[in-house]
């Protein structure tokens, strides 16, 4: 009876079985060696990354979508505070930028200044929306002082690369094998 009840709970609230908040903190920051990509550089304002090979199709829709064979793709979208409206300040505190919010979400900055309700909301966002828990592969890098997140998500299974500026997030999503995503990551540099 108890086992049936537990199964029912897991089916109703699958996040219970996946979410495991990190009590000991998030991943430490790492370094990587820059390696230029084999095809075109893509300019993102102050940063750039390279396409690793010639895509089959390119689409420009408030960003970039490069489509490759075998279900692989690379897309870029710029995210600004307007994209997520007034929720930024309600979670990260007044006068916060979108960069402040993402640094909190990925554990780059401390949440000690947040109130109890804000922390609860942040934890909820991490687990339910961003799929971040101790079992997830989140890697943190810095390029010229700017945090860069490399995150393999479960659903959908994609690789997310976030360059966290203060007022803008460069969001790069890569579908394909990890080696394909790593090529993109290593090609990021300041222009």
């Amino acid at each position: 009876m108890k086992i049936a009840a537990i199964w029912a709970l897991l089916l109703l609230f699958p996040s219970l079985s996946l979410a495991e908040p990190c009590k000991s903190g998030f991943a430490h920051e790492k370094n990587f060696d820059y390696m230029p990509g084999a095809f075109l550089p893509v300019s993102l304002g102050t940063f750039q990354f390279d396409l690793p090979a010639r895509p089959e199709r390119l689409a420009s829709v408030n960003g970039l979508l490069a489509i490759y064979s075998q279900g692989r793709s690379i897309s870029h979208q710029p995210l600004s505070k307007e994209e997520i409206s007034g929720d930024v300040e309600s979670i990260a505190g007044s006068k916060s930028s979108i960069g402040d919010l993402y640094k909190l979400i990925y554990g780059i900055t401390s949440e000690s200044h947040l109130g109890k309700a804000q922390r609860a909301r942040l934890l909820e966002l991490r687990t339910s929306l961003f799929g971040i828990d101790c079992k997830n592969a989140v890697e943190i890098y810095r390029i010229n002082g700017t945090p860069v997140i490399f995150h393999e998500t479960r659903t959908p299974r994609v690789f997310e690369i976030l360059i966290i500026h203060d007022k803008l997030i460069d969001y790069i999503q890569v579908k394909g094998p990890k080696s394909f995503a790593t090529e993109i990551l290593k090609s990021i540099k300041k222009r």
Partner: protein
Amino acid sequence: MTSSLDFEDEENLREVLTSWYGPTAQNWNINDKLINTIIGMVKDMLDCSHTMSYVPQPISFGNPLSQLARIELKGFINRLRDDSRIYVICKKTVLYKNRTTLMEDAGY
């Protein structure tokens, strides 16, 4: 690829997609794969917003479209126009995370 929707519902869904992603969505090919992705996205928005009553029932395993009566699918699309119970951050984050998948579903 075609969809399970009639012309009117396809146009209603296209209107919702345009409000989410801008004019580019007006030319997207509405098909069952794309509708399945949208159902999953709305579920993610609602999981985040703690308002499960908004999701058409029953959705459990497998292909949600096969479990939905046509009338429920019509109601689901109509309810998509009213997202007042969804937190903006939940909606926008789900939208940007799923944009590439939707564009691929839509025939890019």
